[in-house]
């Protein structure tokens, strides 16, 4: 790699961000999914790019460094007992099959009033980033509305659109697209 051949790395200051601590920030009680707390300490680096001065015209107030931000993800668990439901291409209306599945989900959620459900709306890659995020919101919203109509307490439900940003299948074919057009249910107590 051309950029690694340069002396840029010679001036690196290595900063370590120990992300192992994040396991303590995760929700303590999780229904089915194992925690993915195999986060290794993450080594990242910064350099003193742009720290030039120019003696020809007097000194300039340069010398800033780009540094990393160190936020830690507070993620929802990845899976639960509630199966995904799927959508037709470019649609957010619920199919008959989806309604039947959601009927079962509604019963389960009502039987577990101490859980909170994040409804994730996902899309296939055959759309733009921004519009897919809006479409994913519509999908999650259609599911949320349906569950509330089936008697689920609205306070147990939250929604988020992932657009095409987190496909479950990274292939580029009809089968993958069909799997990726989905509403996913993440659960925490």
């Amino acid at each position: 790699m051309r950029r690694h051949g340069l002396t840029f790395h010679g001036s690196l200051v290595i900063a370590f961000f120990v992300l192992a601590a994040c396991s303590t920030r995760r929700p303590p009680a999780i229904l089915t999914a194992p925690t993915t707390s195999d986060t290794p300490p993450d080594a990242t680096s910064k350099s003193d790019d742009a720290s030039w001065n120019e003696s020809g015209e007097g000194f300039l107030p340069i010398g800033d460094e780009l540094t990393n931000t160190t936020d830690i993800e507070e993620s929802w668990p990845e899976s639960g007992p509630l199966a995904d439901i799927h959508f037709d291409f470019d649609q957010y209306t619920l199919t008959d099959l989806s309604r039947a599945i959601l009927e079962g989900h509604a019963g389960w959620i009502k039987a577990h009033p101490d859980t909170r459900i994040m409804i994730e709306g996902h899309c296939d890659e055959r759309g733009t980033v921004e519009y897919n995020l809006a479409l994913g919101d519509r999908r999650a919203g259609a599911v949320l509305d349906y569950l509330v109509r089936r008697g689920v307490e609205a306070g147990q439900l939250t929604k988020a659109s992932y657009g095409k940003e987190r496909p479950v299948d990274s292939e580029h074919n009809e089968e993958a697209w069909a799997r990726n057009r989905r509403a996913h249910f993440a659960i925490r107590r």
Partner: protein
Amino acid sequence: MALIASALLLSMFPSRRAVTQPSQPDARFDIVTQIQRFAIPDCVPRGGDDAVRDACNTMTTVLRRDLRFEGIFQFVPDNLLTAIPAMNPDAPNLDDWKSIAAQILVISRAEIKGKDLALEVKLHYVPTGQVILSRRYAGKEGNPRALAHQAADDIMKQVQFQGVSRTKIVFASDRDSSKGHPTKELYIVDYDGFNPRRLTVNRSLNILPNWRPDGRAISYVSYRQGIPGLFLAAIYEGRSQTITGDGYRSAQVFAPSFSPDGSRVAFASNRKSNMDIWVANADGSGARQITSSPAIDTAPCWSPTGQEIAFTSDRGGTPQIWIMDDEGLNVRRLTNVGNYNDAPNWNPSKQHPEIAYTSRLEGRFEIAVVDLGTSQVRQITAGRGSCESPSWAPNGRHLVFSCRRGRRWSLTIADRTGARVETLDVGPGNSYQPDWGPVPAR
């Protein structure tokens, strides 16, 4: 009186007299009125060790590439450069350069002392023999590219042109994903793809970055708290905080875009249930809903004046680009070609009133530009797989976007005509959603 004033000036800037020779206004006038033909011979090291030779080579490469990038200057061909007899870099024989029709001769020298690298650049205007720029750049030894970018920027300023040599591009990358844990983190690279730096470290999804026009902060969407929220990263301070606003934590925010003066940020949000365009102060406070159609409204971007906003809406049945003023009034449809247009980005140069966007053509997405005067559409990409997320360079002469060829999404750069389209190597993994940063303040 004038003597005292100039003596004062000289004592305030003692080094200025030493290296900067005054330029004649008439010479400058000549320069702007014609296309310049540059000669950029190899940088000449002071001292003979490998480190300074390497730095010199790098700086020559960067200088040449930066000036070539804009596609508006002419250059003396390499075989003519090498035909010039060995020269004294401090006193070049301008007759030699005149004989190969060089108009601007760029002499560069490099020196390393300890850990410090210095680059000296002298611009000779060959027809009159004047030195129109003489400047010394000092920095760390490991940093020759930054010095050369700065010099290239200054050289272009001498011929009345605003280059983008020192600009950076931010984008989302999946390179830090691990098995079973897909992530997107934000990275910043120089505009030529070198010098990648990671900005976010949270193993979540961080997407849709947008530079604040002062170049010191980047707004973006992060899923680190579960629901996608609006964040602002102060990139020189290593700080990132949510600017979603306290009352709106359960609502999603997408596609932030700073106004040209940096005082406001537009975004899409479902705060009132439906996805609409909102405008808030730069810190997220005082948010106001600008659109309220029952359709999807998203992907806002500002006109260079800050008085209008282009956005995507499917209120006409399919996603199309629309324009409104910054109060949400005078809404009109811009795109009429194709049934799926999204992600508008307004050319920041007032010389080029046009909007780049993503358009679906025969099942693939391509980058297109619509001229706001004539409504003519030109297609920038073709046959490069699927491309989206265009963003203009700050001088409006190039676009960066992301294309998927085969299995991989790569950043790609095109000039504004689409004649030259090239993949930008920014490192491993897939690269998405680039946003081209501003020209840094001096």
